[in-house]
């Protein structure tokens, strides 16, 4: 069967349904660009929890006497938890996670860490970011190395986007592929600037005409620029449509910053950008004092925001190609401190979300009786999680990127069992 123009574009109805706003030439140019990369490929969304999330009060070993003993004030009562199995329950604020677990969309990998744990925020985060146990400020991040290993032609959508107003995390830095940061869709919108009185519509048509008229010989620099402009204008036009249609964008708890950033990521995904990697952050997990209320609020933000995100992508039909990784630089100490908080710890759970996961608990429960320097030992090297994502999800051999071979974990439906 002859592919239709719609198939070529890989855009579903979004571009073609908006004839009045997207000039026909863009649809034509899109079709002419049959070589446009696949807009339906798999992608990874990373959510970084800054400050060191208290894993033991997130995925709670509530039946363990040691847990209650070490945390006389901070331990969570069994009855309030979302039950996962006989020994483990999720924090009461994780209602959204509990529902995703029921829907087979949440995998929890327990006791993730690395040898000789480092309790400095900066240094431990650098270890997670670079996937090197000894790293320097200029060591390229593991995701930067991934972007370098994945051959993508320049001129299309950015290979990765950092959705945050903070400094680019080292995970994405130090490679040759530059990763743009954006805080709002405004930055991804063409600001034409033409005042209404000057004839906005005609000028827009004229700009699109001069900006995208085919020119230059095959393979020439000029043709490359022209094609980049075509792709840019069409990405931006699709995005405007997604924003305007508001499809699925309600339902996010808008008062949460993380929810707003995830909604933005969902909009970019739904607009069919070829970007394969999104990265965002949530700060505030360094709960040294009066932790209970703060931690409750943070986990609610994580859980409600991510549930809306996964639901939103489910409705648009994109969920199947999206996997979310949630991690923090370390967990917190087993014993609470005198200020009603916890200090910097070591191993902690990592979360993976999406229909692609093997739902449920993975890895051993933290052993609260076998401690090193007062904290549970790690059982799973975080680089095995990375290897799983690279080998089994993104299809990019992990050994070259991680510098050594790590066996992937049986946590994805797509991966080895």
């Amino acid at each position: 069967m002859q592919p239709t123009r719609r198939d070529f574009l890989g855009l579903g109805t979004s571009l073609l349904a908006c004839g009045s706003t997207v000039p026909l030439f863009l649809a034509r140019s899109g079709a002419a660009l049959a070589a446009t990369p696949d807009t339906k490929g798999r992608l990874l969304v990373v959510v970084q929890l800054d400050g060191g999330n208290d894993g033991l009060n997130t995925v709670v070993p509530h039946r363990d006497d040691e847990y209650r003993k070490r945390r006389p004030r901070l331990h969570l009562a069994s009855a309030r938890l979302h039950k996962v199995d006989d020994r483990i329950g999720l924090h009461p604020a994780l209602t959204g996670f509990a529902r995703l677990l029921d829907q087979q969309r949440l995998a929890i990998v327990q006791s993730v860490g690395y040898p000789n744990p480092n309790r400095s925020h900066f240094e431990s985060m650098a270890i997670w970011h670079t996937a090197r146990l000894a790293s320097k400020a200029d060591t390229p991040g593991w995701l930067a190395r991934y972007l370098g290993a994945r051959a993508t032609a320049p001129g299309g959508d950015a290979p990765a986007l950092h959705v945050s107003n903070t400094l680019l995390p080292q995970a994405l830095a130090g490679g040759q592929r530059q990763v743009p940061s954006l805080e709002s869709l405004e930055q991804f919108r063409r600001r034409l600037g033409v005042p209404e009185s000057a004839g906005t519509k005609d000028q827009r048509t004229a700009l699109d005409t001069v900006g995208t008229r085919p020119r230059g010989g095959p393979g020439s620099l000029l043709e490359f620029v022209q094609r980049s402009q075509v792709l840019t204008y069409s990405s931006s036009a699709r995005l405007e449509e997604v924003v305007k249609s508001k499809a699925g964008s309600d339902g996010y708890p808008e008062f949460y910053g993380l929810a707003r950033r995830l909604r933005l990521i969902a909009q970019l995904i739904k607009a069919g950008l070829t970007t394969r990697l999104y990265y965002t952050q949530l700060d505030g997990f360094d709960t040294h004092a009066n932790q209970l209320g703060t931690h409750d609020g943070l986990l609610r933000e994580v859980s409600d925001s991510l549930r809306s995100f996964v639901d939103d992508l489910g409705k648009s039909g994109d969920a199947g190609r999206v996997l979310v990784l949630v991690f923090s630089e370390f967990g917190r100490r087993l014993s609470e401190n005198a200020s009603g908080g916890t200090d910097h710890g070591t191993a902690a759970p990592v979360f993976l979300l999406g229909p692609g996961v093997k739902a449920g608990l993975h890895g051993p429960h933290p052993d609260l009786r076998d401690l090193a320097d007062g904290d549970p030992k790690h059982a799973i090297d975080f680089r095995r999680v990375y290897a799983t994502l690279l080998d089994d999800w993104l299809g990019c051999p992990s050994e070259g990127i991680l510098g050594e071979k790590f066996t992937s974990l049986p946590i994805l439906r797509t991966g080895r069992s």
Partner: protein
Amino acid sequence: MSKQDPWAPFVPTPEAPWDLDKVAHLHRRAGFGATRAELLRDVKDGPKASVDRLLSSSAADADPEQVVASLKRGVLDSGDGERLKAWWLYQILYGADPLREKLTLFWHSHFATSDRKVQSVPLMLEQNETLRCHALGAFADLLNAMIADPAMLVWLDGATSRKEKPNENFGREFLELFTLGVGHYTEKDIREAARAFAGWVREGRDFRRGDVFRLDPAQVDDGEKTFLNQTGRWKPADIVRITLEQPACADFLCRKLYRFLVSEAKQPPERIGPLAKELRKSKYAIRHVVSVILRSHHFYAKENRRQRVAGPVECSAGLLRVLEMPRADVRLLALAAACARQGQDLFHPPSVKGWDGGRTWLNSATVLERGNWANDLVWGNEDQGIRSYDPLAWAKRHGIAPSKTAAALLGLLLQQDVDAKDRDLILRTGRDGSPAALRKALQLILHCPEYQLA
């Protein structure tokens, strides 16, 4: 020089006259673009006088109001990295020595050092001044300066390199990225160079000056070293000297300069060879080889014009310069941020390899930013305090009638490098000579893909 020599000087002929296209090309490559008055002056003065002027400008007497000095004080008093960028961009926009600024940008990407690791505004500023000072001088001086440059000592760990345990980071990049390129040295050469470079220690820290380093005689390895097949008690300056004796060094540097000044297309060895020979003959005088390039007929050939993707700083700052945006309306911090969003965050190159440039400048996020920056300049952007451009004020300054202004702007920004259909549309749009019509015409010019090429 023979007729086939690509580096023979350009001599105007009736078929290839000295015209606006070539003058604009010269200023795009050797600077950040030129104003209409500068372009017309150089068309009249001819190639020799035009290139002479670029090569002999002096930044020293260019700042009668001491703006640069006062901006610098502000940077050092505040330690603010954004103001550091503004300080440099001011010199790019208003300095009297555009070629030197352009090459400073070249060296910033060659000796790519990022404040991300250095974490010191004063040291980044000092390095920039060092690069500017030696930008057109002897390459040996530049290398010797970089060996002792404080920001570089932090960036590539020279400051932690000790006699007993030399750190190889700087030694490796010195050979791989700064001088010879992969394949022209061994791992042993790296180790021996690292031995010669060791000995710098941090002495202290001063808020305004940043970290201070000194050479500690106890940490200097004055033993015998065998580097690139030569044995002696080599000091850093000997490593530089021996490295520059390698033909590969001249070849490596000329390739990079060619890509920066002439074309991003792949070059056959017979193009680079004669240039590398000139460089060695001149004892690595950068000014000499740049002069040979800028005077050559090859440089002005049609096939080399608009053969580079203009970098974000070139493109965004260049537009302000070429349009003579009134100084009071220029927002340097907004310009720095726009360049960063377009992928060129000054003082933060992505890695020690610098910016790859070329086609990698463009993706949908950066193309959008390029367009938005141009649109903001044309129509204004209240949020950023940018006022809309006044094309009639520009026309009046140059004695151009409103009805001829669109054509003049086209000549200024694209010369003949424009599709006939686009030219018609642009002229038709600006025909009535009203400010709105001229802004629309200008915006169309800046949307032509040709404009993204330098």
